[in-house]
């Protein structure tokens, strides 16, 4: 391994990246904290955030330094496909539930989420989607009495 590659591996280790992340979040928190600080005896709304985000930034520096001194494991590859389909399934559910109701929302969630796995044929996906939709209506709406829009034509 060349020296440059070794340095890059160290800079992208889990500890260094986590530490830099904590540091960044801490600094962003401090930057956004434009609330009145007050004094220790009479704390304003900005006092606790100041303590918390300073602590976060300080720990971030510590974690990153530790990672630089003692090389840790590298970050594994992200599986963007699974992430994408799972997150989008949540988004389509949220978009559908108030407009089209629980049954449709569940079916589209399953249809989208199944792209991230290996369920295979569309017919199996459809069967699972319809089964889960009916089960959810049975358990949540009829069983637990949760009030929400169920069908596209109800309110």
């Amino acid at each position, binding site marked *: 391994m060349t020296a440059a590659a070794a340095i890059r591996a160290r800079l992208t280790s*889990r*500890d260094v990246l*986590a*530490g830099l*992340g*904590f540091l960044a*979040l801490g600094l962003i*928190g401090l930057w956004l904290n434009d*609330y*009145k600080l007050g004094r*220790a*005896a*009479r*704390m304003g*709304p900005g006092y*606790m*955030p100041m303590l*918390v985000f300073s*602590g*976060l930034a300080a*720990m*971030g520096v*510590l*974690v990153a330094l*530790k990672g630089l001194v003692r090389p*840790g*494991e590298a*970050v*594994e590859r*992200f*599986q963007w496909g*699974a*992430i994408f389909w*799972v*997150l989008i399934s*949540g*988004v389509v*559910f*949220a*978009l559908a*539930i108030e407009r089209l109701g629980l049954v449709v*929302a*569940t079916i589209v*969630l*399953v249809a989208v*989420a*199944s792209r991230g*796995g*290996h*369920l295979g044929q569309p017919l199996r996906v459809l069967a*699972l*989607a319809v089964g*889960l939709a009916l089960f*959810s209506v049975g358990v*949540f709406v009829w069983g*637990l*009495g*949760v*009030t*929400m829009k169920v069908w596209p034509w109800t309110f």
Partner: protein
Amino acid sequence: MDILSGLGVGLGVALQPINVGFCFIGTLLGTLIGVLPGVGPVATIALLLPITFGLPATSAIIMLAGIFYGAQYGGSTTAILIKLPGETSSVVTVLDGYAMAQQGRAGAALATAALGSFFAGTVATLFVGAAGPLLTRVALSFSSAEYFSLMVLGLIASVVLAHGSVAKAIAMIFLGLGLGLVGTDVNSGELRFAFDIQELSDGIGFVPVVLGLFGVAEVIRNLETPDWRTNRILPVTRLWLTGKEFRQAAPAALRGTLLGSFLGVLPGGGASLASFAAYGLEKKIARDPSRFGKGAIEGVAAPESANNAAAQTSFIPLLTLGLPTNAVMALMVGALIIQGIQPGPLMMERQPDLFWGLVASMWIGNLMLLVINLPLVGIWVRLLKVPYDLLYPAILVFSAIGVYSLNNSTFDVYVAAVFGLVGYVFMKLDCEPVPLILGFVLGPLMEEHLRRALLLSRGDPMVFVNRPISLGLIAVAGLLLLAIVLPAFRKRRVVMFQE
């Protein structure tokens, strides 16, 4: 109320048909979902949390507790039969439990786990009942300074006694505290970090955060490894113990129970530390340590008793001090707060039904687990064969509906999705999400106590060391942090969690 009359009241509450019913549903659902591959106890409880909100407070908590020990129980079944521990506390059960199953003694291993857990549950129930009132009396003398110091100690201890990097865990606590700041500041009424988003004025929702971090993130992670369930399920034979096995297992279960009951009270330790320690102890005192790992029944009896005892005694800090010591207890705090109950020393006085009912229901729940699990083990085994491709859409559906139904808020669904991604990034960076949840839950309380303590002392931070109890708590926290820097202790800690 002393322990006998307390347990009397508790049994009266827990034996009401509605509570027996919800205890039964809880243990059954907990076992069922706990057995399902890729769903741990925290995710199980988070998933089922929303369905308890419509219930009366006592029934809801009884049911959640049932889900908790049911899920834990399900975890040991999978550990024994397919070498897949449901969670860290049954990791050591795999060593000898799976070995026993390979020798055709799966039935004996399952029976040992069940009987050991039941025995441990019985003892731990009495332990909770006895220790609860004592600690409550201590806690009632606490002022804000002591509470703040106690929470600092609880948070520090929970990261030192758990596994993983301490520095990262402390950073995660701060991050959790930071998330807890979002919303209306109770003192000034000012909105903090809400970015003019109306849904954030009450803060970030607890349930979407937890379901995102533990439910959605786990789904994404499991989808990464397509072929992860390759172990053959071993056949279950005669579900009982021979006389010889019983004589070997019983003392181990007793030792495991005592060790577990004690370790469970410590923050962060809880069930996993207890099972590791109990296994280590058995190996150390055994006449022939080489039997371990090759199907020694003590290696199942001790850790399984210890983790169940610890799981139950970890309720003690929550019920008496209002201090959640692990992720499951943080979920219980969330559930109690949604029910309008602030966990803490006043609970026993104001809601004696809830406290004693919960304690008594633990024993009833353990009895139910014994009765429903041994005969039904065949059904649970079949559940192990459910392919994950069918399972994860169901997990996502129930997460989405559960999160949405809380406030009929689509915003919460987006929050859960975002935290799913955040949780996945945490996994990639080796950051445990549990300290974040603890910080998130305790944040508002810590701010309140810090503010009040410093207001009374006129801004003098010495208030935390001038009061003896507070000084003691801070000193222990400091010692724990110091210990982690010492190489000798650090080495032991690593060894303990690797074995």
